Protein backbone atom coordinates (compact mmCIF):
# COMPACT_ATOMS: atom_id res chain seq x y z
CA UNK A 1 0.00 0.00 0.00
CA UNK A 2 2.81 2.40 0.82
CA UNK A 3 4.33 1.78 -2.62
CA UNK A 4 0.96 2.44 -4.24
CA UNK A 5 0.62 5.67 -2.26
CA UNK A 6 4.12 6.65 -3.36
CA UNK A 7 3.14 6.25 -7.00
CA UNK A 8 -0.12 8.10 -6.38
CA UNK A 9 1.89 11.04 -4.97
CA UNK A 10 3.52 11.39 -8.37
CA UNK A 11 0.18 10.97 -10.16
CA UNK A 12 -1.41 13.81 -8.21
CA UNK A 13 1.83 15.80 -8.42
CA UNK A 14 1.56 15.81 -12.21
CA UNK A 15 -2.14 16.75 -12.12
CA UNK A 16 -1.50 19.60 -9.67
CA UNK A 17 1.44 20.88 -11.74
CA UNK A 18 -0.68 20.85 -14.90
CA UNK A 19 -3.49 22.68 -13.15
CA UNK A 20 -1.21 25.35 -11.77
CA UNK A 21 0.41 25.99 -15.15
CA UNK A 22 -2.77 26.10 -17.22
CA UNK A 23 -4.99 27.97 -14.81
CA UNK A 24 -2.71 30.97 -15.11
CA UNK A 25 -2.66 30.72 -18.87
CA UNK A 26 -6.45 30.63 -18.97
CA UNK A 27 -6.66 33.89 -17.04
CA UNK A 28 -4.06 35.55 -19.27
CA UNK A 29 -5.79 34.41 -22.43
CA UNK A 30 -9.05 35.80 -21.11
CA UNK A 31 -7.43 39.17 -20.45
CA UNK A 32 -6.15 39.16 -24.04
CA UNK A 33 -9.65 38.51 -25.34
CA UNK A 34 -8.86 34.94 -26.40
CA UNK A 35 -10.54 33.04 -23.60
CA UNK A 36 -14.12 32.22 -22.79
CA UNK A 37 -16.23 31.26 -19.82
CA UNK A 38 -16.03 32.22 -16.16
CA UNK A 39 -12.69 32.36 -14.35
CA UNK A 40 -11.58 30.78 -11.05
CA UNK A 41 -12.03 33.86 -8.86
CA UNK A 42 -15.57 34.29 -10.21
CA UNK A 43 -16.59 30.74 -9.32
CA UNK A 44 -14.68 29.23 -6.43
CA UNK A 45 -16.72 29.39 -3.25
CA UNK A 46 -14.33 29.35 -0.26
CA UNK A 47 -16.89 28.94 2.58
CA UNK A 48 -18.65 26.10 0.77
CA UNK A 49 -15.44 24.22 0.01
CA UNK A 50 -14.18 24.84 3.57
CA UNK A 51 -17.12 22.80 4.85
CA UNK A 52 -16.26 20.02 2.37
CA UNK A 53 -12.63 20.09 3.53
CA UNK A 54 -13.77 19.94 7.15
CA UNK A 55 -16.04 16.96 6.40
CA UNK A 56 -13.20 15.03 4.75
CA UNK A 57 -10.84 15.91 7.61
CA UNK A 58 -13.33 14.57 10.15
CA UNK A 59 -13.73 11.40 8.10
CA UNK A 60 -10.04 10.74 8.70
CA UNK A 61 -10.72 10.85 12.44
CA UNK A 62 -13.67 8.44 12.18
CA UNK A 63 -11.53 6.13 10.04
CA UNK A 64 -8.78 5.95 12.62
CA UNK A 65 -11.39 5.35 15.34
CA UNK A 66 -12.76 2.44 13.27
CA UNK A 67 -9.25 1.00 13.11
CA UNK A 68 -8.79 1.44 16.86
CA UNK A 69 -12.11 -0.37 17.34
CA UNK A 70 -11.16 -3.44 15.31
CA UNK A 71 -7.70 -3.55 16.87
CA UNK A 72 -9.40 -3.86 20.27
CA UNK A 73 -11.82 -6.46 18.92
CA UNK A 74 -14.78 -4.08 19.36
CA UNK A 75 -16.81 -4.91 16.26
CA UNK A 76 -19.67 -2.56 17.09
CA UNK A 77 -17.32 0.40 17.33
CA UNK A 78 -15.63 -0.65 14.07
CA UNK A 79 -18.95 -0.84 12.24
CA UNK A 80 -20.26 2.48 13.55
CA UNK A 81 -17.10 4.42 12.70
CA UNK A 82 -16.66 2.72 9.31
CA UNK A 83 -20.22 3.59 8.39
CA UNK A 84 -19.67 7.14 9.62
CA UNK A 85 -16.51 7.44 7.49
CA UNK A 86 -18.34 6.21 4.40
CA UNK A 87 -21.18 8.64 5.14
CA UNK A 88 -18.82 11.61 5.49
CA UNK A 89 -17.07 10.55 2.27
CA UNK A 90 -20.45 10.43 0.53
CA UNK A 91 -21.33 13.90 1.83
CA UNK A 92 -18.03 15.17 0.40
CA UNK A 93 -18.83 13.55 -2.95
CA UNK A 94 -22.33 15.04 -2.91
CA UNK A 95 -20.78 18.45 -2.29
CA UNK A 96 -18.40 17.98 -5.18
CA UNK A 97 -21.21 16.91 -7.49
CA UNK A 98 -23.19 20.00 -6.49
CA UNK A 99 -20.15 22.21 -7.10
CA UNK A 100 -19.59 20.72 -10.57
CA UNK A 101 -23.30 21.13 -11.32
CA UNK A 102 -23.23 24.80 -10.29
CA UNK A 103 -20.07 25.50 -12.29
CA UNK A 104 -21.58 23.88 -15.36
CA UNK A 105 -24.68 26.05 -15.08
CA UNK A 106 -22.45 29.11 -14.68
CA UNK A 107 -21.04 28.25 -18.12
CA UNK A 108 -17.94 26.29 -17.18
CA UNK A 109 -18.01 23.10 -19.23
CA UNK A 110 -15.12 20.65 -19.36
CA UNK A 111 -13.68 22.17 -22.54
CA UNK A 112 -14.61 25.82 -21.89
CA UNK A 113 -11.04 26.89 -21.14
CA UNK A 114 -7.77 25.51 -19.78
CA UNK A 115 -8.76 26.30 -16.21
CA UNK A 116 -11.92 24.21 -16.54
CA UNK A 117 -10.13 21.24 -18.12
CA UNK A 118 -7.39 21.07 -15.52
CA UNK A 119 -9.72 21.87 -12.62
CA UNK A 120 -12.26 19.17 -13.51
CA UNK A 121 -9.50 16.65 -14.20
CA UNK A 122 -7.71 17.28 -10.90
CA UNK A 123 -10.73 17.45 -8.62
CA UNK A 124 -12.53 14.76 -10.64
CA UNK A 125 -9.71 12.28 -10.17
CA UNK A 126 -9.66 13.08 -6.48
CA UNK A 127 -13.41 12.49 -6.34
CA UNK A 128 -12.88 9.19 -8.13
CA UNK A 129 -10.39 8.20 -5.41
CA UNK A 130 -12.92 9.14 -2.72
CA UNK A 131 -15.59 7.08 -4.52
CA UNK A 132 -13.31 4.03 -4.53
CA UNK A 133 -12.63 4.62 -0.83
CA UNK A 134 -16.35 4.73 -0.01
CA UNK A 135 -16.92 1.49 -1.94
CA UNK A 136 -13.98 -0.11 -0.11
CA UNK A 137 -15.33 0.98 3.29
CA UNK A 138 -18.86 -0.21 2.53
CA UNK A 139 -17.42 -3.55 1.41
CA UNK A 140 -15.60 -3.85 4.75
CA UNK A 141 -18.79 -2.95 6.59
CA UNK A 142 -20.85 -5.57 4.74
CA UNK A 143 -18.16 -8.22 5.16
CA UNK A 144 -18.04 -7.45 8.90
CA UNK A 145 -21.81 -8.01 9.15
CA UNK A 146 -21.20 -11.50 7.76
CA UNK A 147 -18.50 -12.11 10.33
CA UNK A 148 -15.63 -11.70 7.89
CA UNK A 149 -13.77 -8.96 9.77
CA UNK A 150 -12.19 -9.85 13.10
CA UNK A 151 -9.46 -8.50 15.33
CA UNK A 152 -6.93 -10.76 13.62
CA UNK A 153 -7.68 -9.07 10.29
CA UNK A 154 -7.12 -5.53 11.55
CA UNK A 155 -4.36 -5.14 8.97
CA UNK A 156 -6.98 -5.18 6.19
CA UNK A 157 -8.72 -2.26 7.86
CA UNK A 158 -5.40 -0.47 8.40
CA UNK A 159 -4.64 -0.72 4.67
CA UNK A 160 -8.06 0.71 3.79
CA UNK A 161 -7.40 3.44 6.36
CA UNK A 162 -4.06 4.34 4.80
CA UNK A 163 -5.78 4.80 1.44
CA UNK A 164 -8.48 6.95 3.02
CA UNK A 165 -6.01 9.18 4.86
CA UNK A 166 -4.03 9.59 1.66
CA UNK A 167 -7.17 10.85 -0.11
CA UNK A 168 -7.56 13.30 2.77
CA UNK A 169 -4.01 14.66 2.58
CA UNK A 170 -4.34 15.11 -1.18
CA UNK A 171 -7.41 17.25 -0.53
CA UNK A 172 -5.45 19.30 2.03
CA UNK A 173 -3.06 20.22 -0.79
CA UNK A 174 -5.79 20.78 -3.39
CA UNK A 175 -7.83 22.93 -1.01
CA UNK A 176 -4.86 25.18 -0.34
CA UNK A 177 -3.44 25.42 -3.87
CA UNK A 178 -6.68 25.47 -5.85
CA UNK A 179 -9.09 27.29 -3.58
CA UNK A 180 -7.24 29.42 -1.03
CA UNK A 181 -4.13 30.76 -2.74
CA UNK A 182 -5.07 33.71 -4.99
CA UNK A 183 -3.64 34.18 -8.48
CA UNK A 184 -2.87 37.34 -10.35
CA UNK A 185 -0.62 38.88 -12.95
CA UNK A 186 0.16 35.69 -14.81
CA UNK A 187 2.80 35.98 -17.55
CA UNK A 188 2.25 34.83 -21.12
CA UNK A 189 3.74 31.66 -22.59
CA UNK A 190 6.54 33.74 -24.13
CA UNK A 191 7.33 35.33 -20.77
CA UNK A 192 7.24 31.88 -19.22
CA UNK A 193 9.72 30.58 -21.78
CA UNK A 194 12.05 33.50 -21.16
CA UNK A 195 11.72 32.91 -17.45
CA UNK A 196 12.67 29.24 -17.87
CA UNK A 197 15.71 30.16 -19.98
CA UNK A 198 16.88 32.67 -17.38
CA UNK A 199 16.27 30.07 -14.70
CA UNK A 200 18.67 27.60 -16.30
CA UNK A 201 21.18 30.33 -17.22
CA UNK A 202 20.72 30.37 -21.00
CA UNK A 203 19.47 33.94 -21.15
Amino acid sequence: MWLFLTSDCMFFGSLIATYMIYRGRAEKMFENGQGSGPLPHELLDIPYTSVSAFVLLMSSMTMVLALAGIQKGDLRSFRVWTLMTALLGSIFLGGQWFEFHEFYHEGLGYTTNMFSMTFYTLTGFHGFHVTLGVIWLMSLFIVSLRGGVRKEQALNVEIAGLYWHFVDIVWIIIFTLVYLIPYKDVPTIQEGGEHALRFIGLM
Partner: protein
Amino acid sequence: MAQVAHDAPLHADAHDAHEGHPGELTYIKVAVILAIITIIEVAIYYIQWMHDKDLLVPALIILSAVKFFTVVSYFMHLKFDPRLLAYCFIVGLLFGGGLILSFMGLFGVHEIDYARDLWGKAMPAS
Protein backbone atom coordinates in the same frame (compact mmCIF):
# COMPACT_ATOMS: atom_id res chain seq x y z
CA MET B 1 -0.66 -27.59 13.91
CA ALA B 2 1.85 -26.28 11.44
CA GLN B 3 -0.66 -23.60 10.45
CA VAL B 4 -1.13 -22.55 14.07
CA ALA B 5 2.60 -22.40 14.65
CA HIS B 6 2.99 -20.31 11.51
CA ASP B 7 0.21 -17.85 12.43
CA ALA B 8 1.18 -17.25 16.03
CA PRO B 9 4.15 -14.93 15.41
CA LEU B 10 2.17 -12.95 12.83
CA HIS B 11 -0.55 -12.21 15.36
CA ALA B 12 2.04 -11.29 17.93
CA ASP B 13 3.66 -8.85 15.49
CA ALA B 14 0.34 -7.27 14.63
CA HIS B 15 -0.46 -6.89 18.30
CA ASP B 16 2.92 -5.31 19.03
CA ALA B 17 2.41 -2.84 16.19
CA HIS B 18 -0.89 -1.69 17.71
CA GLU B 19 0.76 -1.21 21.07
CA GLY B 20 2.76 1.73 19.75
CA HIS B 21 -0.25 3.53 18.25
CA PRO B 22 -1.81 6.44 20.11
CA GLY B 23 -5.15 6.05 21.87
CA GLU B 24 -8.58 7.25 20.77
CA LEU B 25 -8.36 10.39 22.87
CA THR B 26 -5.18 11.39 21.04
CA TYR B 27 -6.93 10.89 17.69
CA ILE B 28 -9.77 13.18 18.79
CA LYS B 29 -7.33 15.82 20.04
CA VAL B 30 -5.46 15.68 16.72
CA ALA B 31 -8.75 16.05 14.81
CA VAL B 32 -9.66 19.12 16.88
CA ILE B 33 -6.25 20.66 16.14
CA LEU B 34 -6.71 19.96 12.42
CA ALA B 35 -10.16 21.55 12.47
CA ILE B 36 -8.78 24.65 14.21
CA ILE B 37 -6.00 24.96 11.62
CA THR B 38 -8.58 24.73 8.82
CA ILE B 39 -10.61 27.51 10.44
CA ILE B 40 -7.46 29.66 10.73
CA GLU B 41 -6.66 29.03 7.05
CA VAL B 42 -10.07 30.22 5.92
CA ALA B 43 -10.07 33.15 8.37
CA ILE B 44 -6.72 34.57 7.21
CA TYR B 45 -7.90 34.35 3.60
CA TYR B 46 -10.39 37.12 4.45
CA ILE B 47 -7.90 39.34 6.27
CA GLN B 48 -6.79 42.02 3.82
CA TRP B 49 -3.70 42.78 5.91
CA MET B 50 -2.38 39.30 5.12
CA HIS B 51 -2.73 40.05 1.41
CA ASP B 52 -1.18 43.49 1.71
CA LYS B 53 1.84 42.27 3.67
CA ASP B 54 2.47 39.35 1.31
CA LEU B 55 1.99 36.94 4.19
CA LEU B 56 -1.00 34.98 2.96
CA VAL B 57 0.74 32.49 0.69
CA PRO B 58 3.58 31.58 3.10
CA ALA B 59 1.09 31.28 5.97
CA LEU B 60 -1.25 29.04 3.98
CA ILE B 61 1.61 26.83 2.82
CA ILE B 62 2.94 26.44 6.38
CA LEU B 63 -0.51 25.70 7.82
CA SER B 64 -1.36 23.12 5.16
CA ALA B 65 2.07 21.51 5.61
CA VAL B 66 1.36 21.22 9.34
CA LYS B 67 -2.00 19.58 8.59
CA PHE B 68 -0.44 17.28 6.03
CA PHE B 69 2.32 16.01 8.32
CA THR B 70 -0.03 15.73 11.30
CA VAL B 71 -2.35 13.42 9.37
CA VAL B 72 0.59 11.42 8.03
CA SER B 73 2.25 11.14 11.45
CA TYR B 74 -0.75 10.35 13.65
CA PHE B 75 -3.61 9.03 11.50
CA MET B 76 -1.35 7.11 9.10
CA HIS B 77 0.85 6.09 12.06
CA LEU B 78 4.06 6.92 10.20
CA LYS B 79 5.49 8.38 13.38
CA PHE B 80 5.08 5.02 15.10
CA ASP B 81 5.75 2.59 12.24
CA PRO B 82 9.14 1.37 10.96
CA ARG B 83 11.23 4.10 9.35
CA LEU B 84 11.46 2.18 6.10
CA LEU B 85 7.80 3.01 5.43
CA ALA B 86 8.46 6.67 6.16
CA TYR B 87 11.39 6.72 3.73
CA CYS B 88 9.23 5.01 1.11
CA PHE B 89 6.56 7.70 1.43
CA ILE B 90 9.07 10.56 1.58
CA VAL B 91 10.58 9.41 -1.73
CA GLY B 92 7.12 9.60 -3.32
CA LEU B 93 6.56 13.03 -1.81
CA LEU B 94 9.90 14.31 -3.06
CA PHE B 95 9.20 13.05 -6.56
CA GLY B 96 5.67 14.48 -6.53
CA GLY B 97 6.80 17.81 -5.08
CA GLY B 98 9.80 17.93 -7.40
CA LEU B 99 7.52 17.35 -10.35
CA ILE B 100 5.33 20.31 -9.40
CA LEU B 101 8.25 22.65 -8.73
CA SER B 102 10.19 21.69 -11.84
CA PHE B 103 7.16 22.12 -14.10
CA MET B 104 6.37 25.47 -12.52
CA GLY B 105 9.98 26.58 -12.76
CA LEU B 106 10.33 25.50 -16.37
CA PHE B 107 7.06 26.86 -17.65
CA GLY B 108 7.16 29.88 -15.35
CA VAL B 109 3.68 30.53 -16.56
CA HIS B 110 1.87 30.47 -13.35
CA GLU B 111 3.38 31.98 -10.27
CA ILE B 112 1.48 32.08 -7.05
CA ASP B 113 0.67 35.64 -6.23
CA TYR B 114 3.71 37.02 -4.40
CA ALA B 115 6.05 34.20 -5.34
CA ARG B 116 6.72 36.03 -8.58
CA ASP B 117 8.09 39.05 -6.75
CA LEU B 118 10.29 36.83 -4.61
CA TRP B 119 11.71 35.18 -7.69
CA GLY B 120 12.21 38.52 -9.35
CA LYS B 121 14.31 39.74 -6.42
CA ALA B 122 16.28 36.53 -6.25
CA MET B 123 17.18 36.46 -9.91
CA PRO B 124 19.93 38.60 -11.46
CA ALA B 125 18.79 41.42 -13.70
CA SER B 126 18.78 40.32 -17.32
